[in-house]
């Protein structure tokens, strides 16, 4: 599935509150029928939004994955087969044939906004 972003068709959505996402973990939100994984990387003071689906076996589980770093790169590991994806650009770090989409994310007044 090719996901093309064009500024004309994306909108900022109110996704959830900051408290909905565990520190140094993730959770899934439903935005206009799409499953988006939100990660609160509090150790790095960064937030990330990606597809919730792992492209390997098409499972909706990435938000339940363990996040961490490889060198400087923030990443998430799929619980199923441990494919790991960069949270910055969505590239798969241990199998280059896969990648996931990432989304702009912002925190304002305790609310998490995602541009989808």
């Amino acid at each position: 599935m090719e996901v093309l972003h064009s500024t004309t068709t994306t909108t900022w959505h109110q996704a959830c509150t900051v408290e909905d996402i565990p520190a140094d973990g993730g959770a899934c939100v439903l935005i206009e029928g799409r499953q988006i994984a939100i990660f609160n990387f509090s150790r790095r003071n960064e937030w990330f939004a990606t597809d919730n689906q792992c492209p390997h076996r098409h499972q909706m589980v990435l938000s339940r994955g363990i996040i961490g770093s490889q060198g400087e790169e923030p990443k998430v590991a799929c619980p199923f087969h441990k494919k790991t994806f960069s949270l910055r650009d969505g590239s798969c770090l241990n199998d280059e044939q896969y990648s996931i989409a990432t989304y702009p994310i912002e925190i304002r007044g305790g609310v998490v906004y995602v541009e989808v």
Partner: protein
Amino acid sequence: MSTSTETRVVVIGNGMVGYKFCEKLIAKEKTHFRLTVFGEESQVAYDRVHLSEYFAGKSADDLLMAPRDWYSENGIELYTGDPVVDIDRERKQVRSHHGLVVGYDYLILATGSGAFVPPVDGVEKDGVFVYRTLEDLDLIQSYARKARKGAVIGGGLLGLEAAKALLDLGVEEAHVVEFASRLMPRQIDDAGSGILQRQLESLGLQIHLNKSTQLIQGTDRIEGLQFADGTELPVDMLIISAGIRPRDELAKIAGLETHPRGGIMVNDQLQTSDPSIFAIGECALVHQMIYGLVAPGYEMAEVVASQLIGNARSFKPFDMSTKLKLIGVDVASFGNPFAQEPDCRTITYDNKAKGVYKRINVSSDGKTLLGGILVGDAEQYNMLLQTCKNLTILPPNPEDLILGSRGGEEAGVGVMGLPDEALICSCEALTKGQLCHEISENGQNTVEALKKSTKACTGCGGCTPLVKDLIQGVMKQQGLYVRNTICEHFDYTRQEVLDLIKINQLTTYNEVLNHLGKGDGCETCKPLVGSVLASLWNENILQKDRAVIQDSNDRYLANIQKGGTYSVVPRIPGGEITPDKLITIGQVAKRYGLYTKITGGQRIDMFGAHVSDLPLIWEELIEAGFESGHAYGKALRTVKSCVGSTWCRFGVQDSVSFAIELEERYKGIRAPHKFKSGVSGCIRECAEAQSKDFGVIATEKGWNLYVGGNGGSKPQHAQLLAADVDKETCTRLIDRFLMFYIKTADPLTRTATWLNKLEGGMSYLKAVVVDDVLGIVADLEKEMQLLVDTYHCEWKEVVENPELRKRFSHFVNVPEQKDPTVQFDSMRNQTKARDWKTVS
């Protein structure tokens, strides 16, 4: 070529030591010397230490110290097959058998030794050999083809090698005849000798001790041996290996001082009575003794070569510690192997079943190691030798040195703890400092590379394990070599992390990462730390910052399945369940549309639960008296049982009750991997306890405890840890075993693999958990009791805690909505997960 500034050096003897002298001299100063070497054998110098490998298939060329070209390339004149027959000390020249006359400024006698042949009637008969040169070996080899029974006189090192050679050559009977009351009398004591003897006998050697050979029977060729006690041994070939005799006849002819019992007398500088003549190796008598090993010979070569280039050196009393493999049996002795009380305290480990004997002699104050003996397992030799030589202060329990040290601090000192001047390779006189420099500064970080650059490990080879440790140690210091460390965020092994977390009393992942690690963690270290925290403190795995460090199964306290739904396994201790509880499971499964299946561990698994249904399901299960079954955790699964004496007509004990007790005791405890158990009520073993991590089988007198079993892809039977023990003892032993495993195993290692990798294996495990050689069982029991006392049902806590419960939803912004992508198909009136697309 000869100019007046050149110093002429003649070496008589082209054996290992004579060769080593040449090598050392030209390494020090190439141009100044003119070297001439005479050898008696037609071969150029070869490795006599490994002579027996000739029979094992090595060629004469393989054994060469250096090829013939090496001599000419280095400007050395070499005459082999041409022994020196006369020394004219007045004119300072030697004359060879072929009439060659060569002048010298310095003469080096490296004539070595010959086999000592005792004056027994009949030694001249056909079929009687010595074991000394390649030529001897050729003769033995061709004669052995027609021999059926062979004997060796001499139960020392070389004699046993010769006996092995006889076996290898296909002789039907190989006998060893020793005059003393034990084998290798100069190296090892009676007990060690006994172990060695049994090992050798099991390999097919027949050993005869206390035998003095009086006559070699036969007319022209040997037909048998006759002993002083009147007994006889019919053999058709004989190898005499009763010791060595220094080759001092040339020195005698030249009028040099020799000892009446053999040996060229030299001073500490290794000079003979003629100051321009030196003697080195086995022909030299220094400190009133002949050094019959290669390492001191090499040192002598070094001492003389140094003096020739103008450095004052003397030969100091040399350590005669040795380690060798005799027909596959390790034998080593070091320091003073025979020191006795009251001068020392002796610790021995004597395992006749495994053929291992270890003895260490510790100084009376318990501080230093005086010497020792190892038979059957000499792995600790190098460290012991270094500990002994460097007078390293011993740990409080010196027995750790021979029993190994797992489960606690490293016993003694690691190789990196040795002082820089510690001699690692005694053949080449290489110190730890030199080798470390070579590894770290010159990048020679393999044994092969070090062999080339320093010649370490090329002599006797005994230092190889220590050199390997050194390479690892240096590389580790440089961060070049990742031992079994966890990941890029933690430069520690699991065991180290466990110890450090305990010492520092850390309870959250971020504390652990801040204290011990770097970066932001990952999917490898997070669950590992989570497991270790649980093993140590047993707090709820989802509280503080711990939920997000758990693998998905632990994080949702259920097993993730295809499609992203979970399966639920309530605990059914011992496999015993009431009808009411069965009904509850049926009702729950029906209500939530779950597929049900009996597991291999006598439990019931319910599949296909949406993450948001999990707390609801558990609410009902807990209400009915169920607890978490921890099928999702690296923890105790089930204690399987057979029905036992309560119903079964064969049962001798109540296996179900004991299984329930054990399951209740160990439930919820986190370990490096899952672990399983079983209890059988009699020897028929219907609970298959021997395929479990720990298994118990009832006997008439009590219970037999087995540990380290495994089913799975590599089935392995558990091994007996204790027999006929009562329940309390059995439980105590399981406490210790499990805790020892939990504290020392690598991540994701089952007990079977752990035990297989555990040095010393089952006997070591027994020594630790039964005999308490490490003195840790009280701690292990205490630590286990803490885990038992702090048990809590994780699911009960989640169900009752709104904060935790909130995390069990698929969409945080629409918690009541389930994942719409989850789909099931039906099969045999139940559901199954829809197959996932395998094409991407």
